[in-house]
């Protein structure tokens, strides 16, 4: 209990001294041991292991090839995917690709024949092309006004740049999008063709090359993945990544075909093909809240208590130094970890990371339900 002489309304207390406020919230109910009340709760009323429900809505933008709107509590992200054609002539250092069934190797991924294993092995294929030709371009913008710390008219903040990099690396390392979906061949594959072709307004590109009999890649689709934070209340990465996955699952590319007479790639106006998205990687973030404000770490023993706050909000993020993000995919039945990012402290050790995999698994099931 606070000193009886000073009585502060909760919002004022939170504003003046956020750290003791959160600490008091986490400890008070636990100490009371009142069976009627829930166990230790955070200032936002959630339990330490309780996430905010994720709401995903697809196709919210009419002019994008794919889009999604993801809400995670008060964090709202809008994601739009726009595809543009990149003719191979415009690619410096282009390396031709053969269509040799599934065993094909894109650009930089030559050699290493022993890579036989199913899904992970396929994800590897074409990773080189995606990376070398920059076929996936994520960009994140934190809208002015989405949170008080984002000011208008400033260059992208370190946070926005860091998020973009994380999304970019994860897109490549998970192999969410396969390069075969983005290739446009000079001879249409079976089941395509016979459509009313026409030049896609801004997308058909001139290709100046002699007629070749061989089947070859003439162009690539480049996916521009733009994310806009409409409102920001912590845990930006989980929301951003969910939005990217939802938007890509919603993306359909027009069927593109090489027209040998006009020597250009033409897109079908009506016919569209759903983008193939492999698996469903889900990000799960937690922050470590330490009992001691500006606490000392690194003396061997962990001083004071600490709490792992799942899905931290903005207030909690400012009070925590250490955070962990784990990306898991359980779509094959088995839990595969796609990424671990842990930084800023030494509280989370081996045991906590192991335990966190179970929490992330649970989160995956929740998100999977929301994405349906």
């Amino acid at each position, binding site marked *: 209990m606070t000193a009886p002489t000073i009585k502060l309304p909760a919002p004022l207390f939170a504003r003046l001294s956020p750290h003791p406020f959160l600490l008091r919230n986490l400890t008070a109910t636990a100490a009371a041991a009142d069976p009627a009340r829930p166990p230790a709760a955070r200032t936002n009323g959630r339990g330490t292991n309780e996430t905010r429900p994720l709401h995903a809505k697809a196709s919210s933008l009419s002019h994008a090839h794919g889009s999604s709107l993801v809400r995670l509590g008060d964090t709202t992200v809008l994601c739009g995917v726009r595809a543009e054609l990149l003719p191979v002539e415009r690619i*410096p*250092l282009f*390396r031709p690709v053969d269509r040799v069934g599934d065993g094909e190797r894109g*650009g*930089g*991924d*030559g*050699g*290493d024949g*022993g*890579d*036989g*294993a199913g*899904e*992970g*092995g396929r*994800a*590897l294929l074409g*990773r*080189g092309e995606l990376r*070398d030709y920059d076929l996936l371009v994520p960009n994140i913008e934190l809208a002015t006004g989405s949170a008080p710390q984002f000011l208008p008219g400033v260059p992208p903040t*370190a946070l926005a*740049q*860091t998020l*973009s*990099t*994380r999304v*970019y*690396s*994860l897109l490549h*390392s*998970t192999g969410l999008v396969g390069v075969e979906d983005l290739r446009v061949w000079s001879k249409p594959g079976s089941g395509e063709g016979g459509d009313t072709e026409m030049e896609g307004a801004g997308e058909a590109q001139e290709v100046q090359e002699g007629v070749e009999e061989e089947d070859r890649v003439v162009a690539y689709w480049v996916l521009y993945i733009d994310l806009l934070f409409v409102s920001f209340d912590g845990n930006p990465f989980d929301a951003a990544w969910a939005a990217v996955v939802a938007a890509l699952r919603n993306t359909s590319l027009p069927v593109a075909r090489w027209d040998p007479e006009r020597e250009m790639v033409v897109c079908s106006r009506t016919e569209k093909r759903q983008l193939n998205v492999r698996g469903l990687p889900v990000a799960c973030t937690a922050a470590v809240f330490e009992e001691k404000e*500006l606490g*000392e*770490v*690194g*003396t*061997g023993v962990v001083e004071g208590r600490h709490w792992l706050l799942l899905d931290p909000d903005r207030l909690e993020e400012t009070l925590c*130094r250490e955070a*962990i993000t784990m990306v898991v995919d359980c779509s094959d039945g*088995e*839990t*595969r*970890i*796609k*990424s*671990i*990012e*842990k*930084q*800023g*402290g*030494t509280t*989370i*050790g*081996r045991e906590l*990371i*192991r335990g966190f*995999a179970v929490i992330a698994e649970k989160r995956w099931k929740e998100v999977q339900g929301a994405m349906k």
Partner: protein
Amino acid sequence: MTVTTTAPQAALGVLPRSDGSAKYSHAGYTLTASVNGPIEAQRRDEHAYEAHVEVIVRPAAGVGGTRERHLESLLQSSLAQLILVKNFPRSLIQIVLQVEDSPENDYVNTKLVQASLNLAIMPALVQTAILALLSAGVPMRATATATAVAVVHQDGAKKTVVDPSPREVETARSVHVLAFTSHNGLLLAESEGDFTVGEWDDVYETAKGICCRAGPAKEGTAMVLDDEEASATDMRQFLRSTMESKVAADLHWK
């Protein structure tokens, strides 16, 4: 080009004008770091109770991009845990890391426009920064050591590769960077790829064996090590011997 698994090399105080500096090369990477501080912080960086740690990563060519910002934020949050920031309120400790050389890669279609840094450079960044901080005499809680480990699937067998080459990073199933404090705390863990909890555990053991060798008793017999190469690198011993020679040179008059 295969990376020669030679022992890491370091030189301290290479930049006479800065408060502390270090040049470090290992696994094909060469970096130079300078540390200045505590110095006066800019008003917007000023913190009433602790020093602001600023990390700047400069790539070998061109200006830094979003990837460098990401590496900087990772380093910043880790180093701020090691430096006794509360000893110097309202001040700034600036760490500038210049990449001079990174291992070349003949197989991978290297981008001409932007030489992107990847996770594999992280251990070198951590080591160089720590050496430069020690050289500057910035008070710290502990030191740290870091290493990169890749899990490669070859001919159906799993192989753990320490200090992977860019080629190995490219073809690896998963790549991991782990940093440990001198109190054996896990300071930084960055992993990407596709792996299970069990695989991560093995990687953790391998990395711990390199970063925090606790005397002669080697723990974890299950680790699949690349024979003598792993036992040759002992980052903590390396850090210690580097600092011992620096201190001996400083205190030659004793």
